[in-house]
């Protein structure tokens, strides 16, 4: 359900009302040149990311264990994760599991199983961060999208906004529920330069941790050198304006339940509307003035 830029502009052009928007919308989707510059400035050019090569994964689920251990979530023993019966059900991250691996039998290379680890994608321009009413969610210039429970009021708009349905909520905590999602182990990955827990434990080196810009090149190089092995699509390079976590795979991503998303970034659309109407409070002040004038004009008419 792409909203093309043309239809967006036509809608607005025809329906004068939020007219200031049209002039601010530049050639690149919803993003204005001003916004793009502001964003480029905000994001570190050396920001980190992860490239996950799904053709390498054997579904050992050690990443699930490491994630739980590193984030103080219930995680049991490492050998618990040898249990393959969990693959019978399609699983999603929960409020006690930031990452899960799903198995797609026979869909891998040469009829092997294809295993897909899912977690927060750490969008470049995250909808959850744009949604958050108190700034509890934050996109670090270095890449990770982090959560500060001490600010959160629990409105759950981030969950509504996330196109990947990632943030989960501690609904059963009556007093101090938190939003639960992967933070890319930012304390160690960004602050100490170590690997995120899931990347670190992986015995197959499915995931490569590094500068996002280099990972994009690496992904395309792998596809170029092995065109029979991969579909020519780096998932996350452009989806919703790009993500820090990216995938390459031997099957189209729609077949392994990753949502098909436009390159347009939804956060820029709403932020353009918000700032178009409220920039410098010009909209409200103008309306106030007009109404004040109307009060006077109508007064004269009546007399």
């Amino acid at each position: 359900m792409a909203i093309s830029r043309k239809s967006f502009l036509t809608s607005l052009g025809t329906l004068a009302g939020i007219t200031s928007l049209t002039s601010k919308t530049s050639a690149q989707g919803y993003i204005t040149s001003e916004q793009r510059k502001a964003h480029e400035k905000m994001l570190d050019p050396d920001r980190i990311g992860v490239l996950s090569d799904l053709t390498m994964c054997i579904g050992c689920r050690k990443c699930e264990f490491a994630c739980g251990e590193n984030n103080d979530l219930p995680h049991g023993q490492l050998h618990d994760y040898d249990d393959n019966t969990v693959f019978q059900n399609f699983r999603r991250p929960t409020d006690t599991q930031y990452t899960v691996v799903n198995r797609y039998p026979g869909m891998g290379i040469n009829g092997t199983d294809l295993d897909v680890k899912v977690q927060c994608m750490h969008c470049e321009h995250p909808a959850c961060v744009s949604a958050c009413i108190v700034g509890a969610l934050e996109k670090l210039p270095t890449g990770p999208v982090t959560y500060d429970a001490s600010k959160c009021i629990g409105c759950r708009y981030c969950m509504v906004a996330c196109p990947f349905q990632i943030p989960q909520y501690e609904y059963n905590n009556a007093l101090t529920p938190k939003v639960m999602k992967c933070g890319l182990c930012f304390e160690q990955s960004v602050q100490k330069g170590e690997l995120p827990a899931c990347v670190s434990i992986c015995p197959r080196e499915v995931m490569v941790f590094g500068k996002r810009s280099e990972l994009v090149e690496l992904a395309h190089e792998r596809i170029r050198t092995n065109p029979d092995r991969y579909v020519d699509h780096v998932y996350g390079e452009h989806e919703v304006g790009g993500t820090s976590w990216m995938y390459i795979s031997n099957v189209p991503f729609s077949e392994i339940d990753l949502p098909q998303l436009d390159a347009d970034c939804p956060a820029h659309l709403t932020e353009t509307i918000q700032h178009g109407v409220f920039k410098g409070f010009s909209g409200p002040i103008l309306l106030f003035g007009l109404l004040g004038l109307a009060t006077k004009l109508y007064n004269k008419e009546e007399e």
Partner: protein
Amino acid sequence: MSAARSNGVVPYFTRGVWVLVVLAALGLGSAMLRFIFGIGAVTNLDGQYPWGIWIGVDVATGVALAAGGFTSSFIAHIMHRERYHVITRPALLTAMLGYTFVALGVVIDLGRYYWIWHVLMPSMWQGNSALFEVGICVVTYLTVLYIEFIPILTERFRGRVHFPGAWAALNGFTESLLKFLDNTLGRAITFFIIAGVVLSCMHQSSLGTLMVLAPSKLHPLWHTPILPLLFLLSAFAVGLAMVIFESILASRSFKVPYETPILAQYARYIPIMLWIYVFAKVLDMVNRDSYMFLIDGSVESIFFIIEVVVGVFIPIMIFTSRRLRKHTGWLFSGAAAVVFGVVLNRINVFIIGYQPPYATQRYLPSIFEILVTVGFISLLILIYRFFVLNFPIIHELEKKKYA
């Protein structure tokens, strides 16, 4: 006003009121359960559906239905259509109570309700969030509504303050406070009335911006960049209709003459607003080619068609007819249709049309969610009845009180 108030002309308690008392008690009880056992224990909300009827109905629909406050004050006070003054006070009361209950609905739904004041802290302001804009505007507008209500308080109590017993010492002070408020507000009230209209336009539209942020989750019949505009236009229409709807209900309940001639004139504005609304909606659908989803027979398409036919086209037909407008019954039907249409629209945008990518089932509210929502509406009506019986709100009822 020397005539003795003949209280008891209309009793507070009737059989219907007792039903509301029971419903309100059940609702408050369910709300208690939520605070003791948590959101997960009493609602059907989960990781797929983070927002249910407490946001979709209590908050989003509540804000829309309370739009009667700013639409009527715009027409009566800014356009100076003096004949409509009789309907501005009930509309103001509805808005004041409506927004108060919107705030309560938010508190119930928030996981960490005790930190709701974070929204007011400049250090945590997040100007990119449409929800932040809604939150700040609702808080400010609620304050403005309370201020706009002060003249009703002063009219009721000025010159009549006599506290019992030892409290009588406060009589003089309270009187002068009322006098001060009356005199000050008399001059400043226009400012607050205009502020109320501006704030309403701001958050009624921003409420629509909320779901624009989830283009891949909201069904294409409803997701559009002009959703804020559509929310604003439908708020205008339902604000007008709601005033008619409740005026007729109140007149009937208190057994006073209907305001039909005034309401019939007021109703003329409704088809204009509905035409503009539906024009914008159709044009946008043609632009986005989303009309193709109308005929796929899905639940969404059926809900959309009901929303537009009942909420827009039927009332346009009723209110455009000069003959039908004169009948209280038709006026009520038309207004009820608009109210139904906007309620359904908000439910469609926030609940029916919300399609998370990994949904395993549809969201249906739990019994406790329904009890809280119904209970809050009942409590609102009970408080409305108390105010109307004890304060100068409904013109015809005042005549009856002092008859």
